[in-house]
Each structure stands twice: as structure tokens, then as C-alpha cells.
């Protein structure tokens, strides 16, 4: 049987998304299992990412597996000039599955080509980070009870933010999503994604700032507006406070609305939102462990 990798969110079918949702639910209900007993999982982090690495390593530990790897390239043979090809070839001889983060785009797809064992992309530069998308979907599923008919507000940097692009692609596989994009013109959703939605007959709306329509949201997905994305610093100064979510803005929103954020947050969600039950970003991060348990079990055909 050919091996299965998870490099881009589009590598999984809708059936696989739903399977991951169901498995995540099962793992959340029963988080300590021994499915990975006797298995070795490599976590190769060519650039540091504390949150993602700890989440994956917690998932492996919860499943009873052993971990080999490194948490930055200085402590690997990469610092001696070894190619990615050779590192992956070597590690795929040792481990049953490779989880990799690398600063270069396309590195994960290449690693999957070189490796004899499944590869999970834990982020390849600004390109893809599919386990984040699956945990976002699980958070939506858990809080809304469904992935169909979701009115999703995406706020902030919609141009460079890989998480919003992947989530858009994934939710487009489900019934009747409505997308509302809230971003400055400099960071607007790229045309290719809007074209993709139009071709599928999916409704989307663009807004320059939060407005009353936010009351219709089921999910508000916040992202960070980064200063370095602006050519003109004056433009940044003009918009930097426009995309900050404050508790007072949530007064008329649906009681079931949840606020998601891939984290780390800087200032785009005011701390006064944290105590509002509509804030979900810390629970969202916790869901990542269960989703990653589900992804690993699925790729290794353990479930």
C-alpha cells in the first residue's frame, strides 16, 4: 500500500476531514492510548516553533510513542551542511513517521518524495500548515456542532496569512459556507481565492472594518496585522487599531459565536475579551493535541 502524507490541506478528502474530526473527538474523550506503542516518531524542526512542536510531541506521548528529533537546525547535522535530502533519507530509516517544520516553502513536499515513511508538514515557510487547519476545523465542529452552513469572519492579514487560506479551502468542501473578509486593502484576500469561491458558487463579502454584520458571525477568525507587511509605515499606523477586537464589540453577536486565533496573539484581541465565554483561542490550542493524535493515527493506519 502506498504511504499517505499530509503536506497541504488539499491532500485530504472531505471524508478524511470528517474522519479526523471523529477521531479527534474520540481522543479527546479518551486521551491516553497506546496505539503508538513500539513506534518511533521523528520531529524535525529546522526552525523553532514551541507551540506546534509541543503539541505534536504531547500527541505522540499521549499515544505511547517514542520521539527522536531536534528542535532547531543548529543542533542537527544541517549545521554541518547536510542537505535536506540526506537528512530525510537517514531519518526515514529510523522512524515510522516524520513530522517536519522547515523555513523553505515546498520543503515538506520534497521530504515526502524522498522519505519512505509518511511525512506531516508542520509548516513549510509561508506555504502550508495543514494540522493547524484541521484543529481549526475541529474547533468549529466542536463549538458549532457542524461544518456546514458556517458564517465565518476572517479578520486582519488575509493576504499573507496561510491559516486563513487553508481554512477557506477546507470549509469550501462543506455546505453553504459564507465568508466575510475584514482587512485593509493592502492585506485583502488574494484574487485567486476569491475566484476559487466564485467558481464554486460560494458567497463572500469584503469589509474594510468591523461593522454590524459581525452579529451574523458563527466564527470570528482573528489574525495578526504585521507592521512589516506594509510598504508605507503611515498606512500601517492608519489601520493598526482598526482590526483590534474588543469585548464591547461582542455585545450583539450570537450567543454561540466563538473567537478563534492561530496564536501567538500580539494586540489584535484585547485582553478584556479573554474572560468572555465567546473567546475560544486557548481551547483551540488544546484541541490541537487531539487533532494531531488523529492525524498521526490516520496516516499510520492505526485507526
Amino acid at each position, binding site marked *: 500500500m502506498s504511504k499517505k502524507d499530509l503536506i*497541504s490541506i488539499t491532500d485530504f478528502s472531505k471524508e478524511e476531514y470528517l474522519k479526523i474530526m471523529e477521531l479527534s473527538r474520540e481522543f479527546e474523550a479518551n486521551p491516553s492510548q497506546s496505539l503508538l506503542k513500539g513506534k518511533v516518531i521523528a520531529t524535525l524542526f529546522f526552525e523553532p516553533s514551541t507551540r506546534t512542536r509541543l503539541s505534536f510531541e504531547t500527541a505522540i506521548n499521549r499515544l505511547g510513542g517514542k520521539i527522536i528529533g531536534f528542535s532547531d537546525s543548529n543542533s542537527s547535522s544541517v549545521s554541518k551542511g547536510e*542537505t*535536506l*535530502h540526506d537528512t530525510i533519507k537517514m531519518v526515514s530509516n529510523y522512524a515510522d513517521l516524520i513530522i517536519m517544520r*522547515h*523555513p*523553505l*516553502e*515546498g*520543503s515538506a*513536499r*520534497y521530504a515526502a518524495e524522498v522519505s519512505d515513511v509518511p511525512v506531516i508538514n508542520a509548516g*513549510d*515557510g*509561508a*506555504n*502550508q500548515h495543514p494540522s493547524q487547519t484541521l484543529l481549526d476545523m475541529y474547533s468549529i465542529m466542536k463549538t458549532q456542532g457542524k461544518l456546514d452552513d458556517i458564517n465565518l469572519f476572517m479578520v486582519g492579514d488575509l493576504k499573507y496569512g496561510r491559516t486563513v487560506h487553508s481554512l477557506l479551502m477546507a470549509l469550501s468542501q462543506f455546505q453553504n459556507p459564507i465568508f466575510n473578509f475584514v482587512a485593509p486593502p493592502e492585506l485583502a484576500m488574494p484574487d*485567486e481565492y476569491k475566484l476559487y469561491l466564485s467558481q464554486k458558487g460560494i458567497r463572500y463579502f469584503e469589509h474594510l472594518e468591523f461593522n454590524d454584520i459581525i452579529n451574523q458571525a458563527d466564527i470570528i477568525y482573528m489574525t495578526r496585522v504585521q507592521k512589516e507587511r506594509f510598504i508605507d509605515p503611515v498606512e500601517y499606523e492608519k489601520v493598526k487599531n482598526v482590526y483590534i477586537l474588543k469585548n464591547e464589540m461582542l455585545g450583539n453577536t450570537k450567543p454561540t459565536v466563538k473567537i478563534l486565533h492561530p496564536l501567538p496573539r500580539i494586540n489584535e484581541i484585547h485582553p478584556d475579551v479573554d474572560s468572555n465565554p465567546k473567546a475560544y483561542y486557548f481551547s483551540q490550542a488544546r484541541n490541537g493535541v487531539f487533532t494531531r493524535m488523529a492525524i498521526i493515527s490516520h496516516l499510520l493506519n492505526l485507526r
Partner: protein
Amino acid sequence: MQKQLNVSAIKDGTVIDHIPTKALFKVIQILKLEEFNNMVTFGNNLDSKAMGTKAIIKIANRYFEDEEVNKISLVAPNAKLNTIRNYEVVEKRVVQIPEQVNGIVCCFNPKCITNSENISTKFQIINNKPIEMKCYYCEKITYENEIKIK
């Protein structure tokens, strides 16, 4: 008026005509003509009714498969191939943009792994006019005006 060929005729072989003048050396590079032992003659900045100016390449005693020659469509999308036997044109072909392009073009994305390790590039053509090609690895799109030959 006396009509004279700027690039002399070949008895047998292939003539590649209607190459944009700027693409001549790229076509030579893509077809690896510098490695040929056959006689290769070419002319550049020739008058062309259709193109204003054009380039032409004549390769003696050499014939090309479609797959081989379609690679040049990335830089010379309107190129025409004439197969010559005994000074006569026996076949005319136009080049076609392939669906997949492997190992010829660099990915425009400086952060793509293919620009860092020794990896043969792979692209899927997602639009023909103008050419847009999606990198199999980094998933970014290289546009026609960014095409650089490896």
C-alpha cells in the same frame, strides 16, 4: 527583386521559425543545441510580417519529438517547426504548451526549496495565455514574465 535567404537552406533537418528575438538563446539552451555535433545555423532580428522581428534556427539532420520541442513553447509560444527532407518542407508543426513542465524553468519564489537544494523543478501549467505555472513543491505560481530557464 531578388529574394535571398538570410540563413542558408538545409538539405535535411528541422527549421524552427517564428521565435521571438529575445527568446533565441533560451531556445538554444532548452534544446541543448550547444551540445549538438550537427550543423546548427541561426539568425536573429530578421524581418517578420507577423512579429516585426523574429529569430530562426536551422538544425541539419536532426528531428524532434513533440515532447522534446514543446518545451520551447514556454519562451516561444508561436514557434513553428518545419521538417525538411531533400530541401522540401515535408511537415509543419506548431509547438504546444505541455501540461507539465519538468526541470527546465526555475521557480520564481526565492524561498522555494528547489532554489536551495539540487532538485529538478516540476510545474503544472494552469493557464496558457499568458503562461501561469504552479510549482509542485512550494505551490506558488510563476508567471510568463518571470520565467527563467534553469
